[in-house]
């Protein structure tokens, strides 16, 4: 009843081409952002540290991969490694220049992974589909090998691990052992909102249309004057930029320290799951996908023992872990069968139904 298009007249082009043409949508978005900030003050530290921070980080990485796979149609399995490049670049930069604010380095580290991403994106000019996916596996394994074998990347420290030094913003520690989950959550949230806004503008503008044209039919796009080389490499670079920033956030604002193993091939698959379950070519889908794939196992870990206990079945933590794997696997197949276009499409259908409710059309 409240969600109606009636009475909202568009009087100029800008209003007509707005991303959120409905007033209710804009209000809803504002409420969600406000609620996300409010959560920092009402949520407990478990919720912030174990659920919300990783959810936002994975959403950011999913947006990155979605730009490449969803919008440009190039399948990549090197996401984990590109995240790693961001994390290592950030570590080198902030230990080499400790005086500069770390937020700047987090944003700058993305440029390093963008460069590496564009380099490994070169084969995409000749190959597509699964062949390209395997080519990006080369990036994954080669870069991971570099993280292990080049001690310079971790400043020759003995453990070979990245650790977050103490860094402050406006006098409050945001990184390192003294930073509270609350402040780290606020920093991550702000960065993710900023970059999502930027991505939204990119994909709805000329560049995004170029990517979509290449995805839908590269030959036709080329005939229309879109250069495949530049467009594809740009997609790789922007995608890797997002992944790199997400990697830096993952290590320094979530884990607080990590080894090369965080950026292994499973991380790449994990992000790809999120993108496909959430919906290819949809920014909000990236958030849905990250929520489903990351938060669902946590919820299952809490809910499953509670569900089984009334039947007198008490199971160990390892069985719960195995059941989680099975349920997540089955759910992936289930969602693909029910809605191959992902959760974003379900969301769209839901909104459409709500607009005309209670009538079917």
């Amino acid at each position, binding site marked *: 009843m409240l969600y109606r298009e009636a009475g909202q007249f568009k009087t100029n082009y800008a209003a007509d081409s707005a991303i959120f043409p409905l007033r209710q949508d804009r209000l809803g978005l504002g409420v969600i952002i406000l609620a996300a900030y409010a959560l920092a003050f009402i949520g407990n530290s478990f919720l912030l540290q174990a659920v919300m921070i990783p959810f936002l980080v994975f959403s950011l990485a999913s947006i990155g991969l979605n730009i490449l796979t969803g919008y440009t149609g190039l*399948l990549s399995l090197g996401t984990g490694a590109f995240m790693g490049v961001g994390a290592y670049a950030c570590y080198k930069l902030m230990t080499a220049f400790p005086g500069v604010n770390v937020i700047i380095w987090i944003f700058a580290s993305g440029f390093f992974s963008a460069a590496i991403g564009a380099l490994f994106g070169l*084969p995409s*000019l*000749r*190959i*597509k*589909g*699964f*062949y390209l996916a*395997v*080519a990006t*596996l*080369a990036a994954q*394994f*080669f870069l*991971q*090998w570099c993280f*292990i*074998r080049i001690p310079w990347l971790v400043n020759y420290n003995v453990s070979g691990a990245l650790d977050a030094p103490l860094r402050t913003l406006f006098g409050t520690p945001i990184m390192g052992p003294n930073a509270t989950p609350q402040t780290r959550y606020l920093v991550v949230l702000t960065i993710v909102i900023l970059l999502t806004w930027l991505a939204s503008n990119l994909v709805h503008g000329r560049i995004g249309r170029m990517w979509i044209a290449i995805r839908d039919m*590269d*030959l036709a796009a*080329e005939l229309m004057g879109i250069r*495949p080389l530049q467009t594809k490499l740009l997609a790789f670079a922007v995608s890797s930029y997002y992944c790199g920033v997400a990697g830096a956030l993952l290590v320094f604002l979530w884990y607080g320290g990590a080894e090369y193993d965080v950026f292994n*091939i499973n991380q790449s*698959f994990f992000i*790809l*799951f999120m993108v*496909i*379950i959430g919906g*290819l070519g949809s920014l909000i889908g990236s958030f849905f996908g990250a929520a489903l794939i990351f938060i669902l196992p946590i919820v299952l870990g809490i809910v499953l023992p509670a569900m089984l206990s009334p039947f007198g079945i008490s199971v160990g933590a*390892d*069985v719960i*872990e*195995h*059941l*989680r*794997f*099975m*349920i*997540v*696997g*089955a*759910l*992936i*197949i289930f969602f*693909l*069968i029910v809605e*191959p276009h992902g959760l974003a499409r379900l969301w769209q259908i839901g909104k459409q139904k709500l607009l005309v409710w209670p009538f079917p059309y």
Partner: protein
Amino acid sequence: MDILYKIFIEPFVFMGEAPDLLIQTLWEGLVSGVLYALIALGFVLIFKASGVFNFAQGIMVVFAALTLVGLYEKGVPAFLALILAALAMLVLAVVVERVVLRPLVNQPDIILFMATFGLTYFLIGFGELIFGGNPKEMITSALLLPQGTTELDMLGGMVRFQHLDIAAAVIASIMIGLLAVFFSKTRIGRALRAVADSHKAALSVGISLNQIWVIVWFAAGIVALVAGIMWGARSGVSFSLQIIALKALPVLILGGFTSIPGAIIGGLIIGVGEKIGEFYWGPLVGGGVETWLAYVIALLFLLYRPQGLFGEKIIERI
């Protein structure tokens, strides 16, 4: 200049000085190549018949081997366990066809690819739930696989041949020969080739696609079982085998996604190239190049011949 010498001259001088080491390395490369080829074969079988890029092939290898060892540990005789493991793969094929492939028919490739990801997760959980997550020993002696080594005097040195490796090579060759006969001589094999050529034409002459899918998934399951036994005998049965299975992907690029001979030759090239590269050039960069060398070989190869050695010419490219 020094680095150029180390890259282009020294390894070859070393090869010439110690030919026995070269033969040893070549042999090890060939054996792992055969095993890569076996895993790649499973991919090719399914890709040809149903166009599905089956990511779950790696976990099928682990699952088949786990079923075999797990049943044996529960007291089932080894060869009965082998038959039961094969039956388990048949059940898996039927279930996959009914639950995953049939509802998803006509979806884009990437969706089917993702569905096999879901299958992978499910099988990991299922396998660990039933058989436990600990690494297991492959029951080599109970399956009458030979053990021990033969040392041959050769070119001024000793070359070791593990009997198990020889058996692996022989069994893999027999397996490939049987598959070749199956594809070219039998009625079902011809139906499979017809489906690979054109789904619609095959349907119109009365070939049941659903049946064919069950058969290829079962065949891939049997190949996975054999690969699982061989890999398991070399490095134990655990879920880390799944990562080794990813090595089949560069093999596929090299050989082409749709070619059985391609999978075998690609496997051998990757296996040998990897071992030679690791042994002679690896020390220059600190070793461990084995993890990515295969992918880089495949990547370079793609630039010159995107359809692979024997792949079909029609490839998605500009």
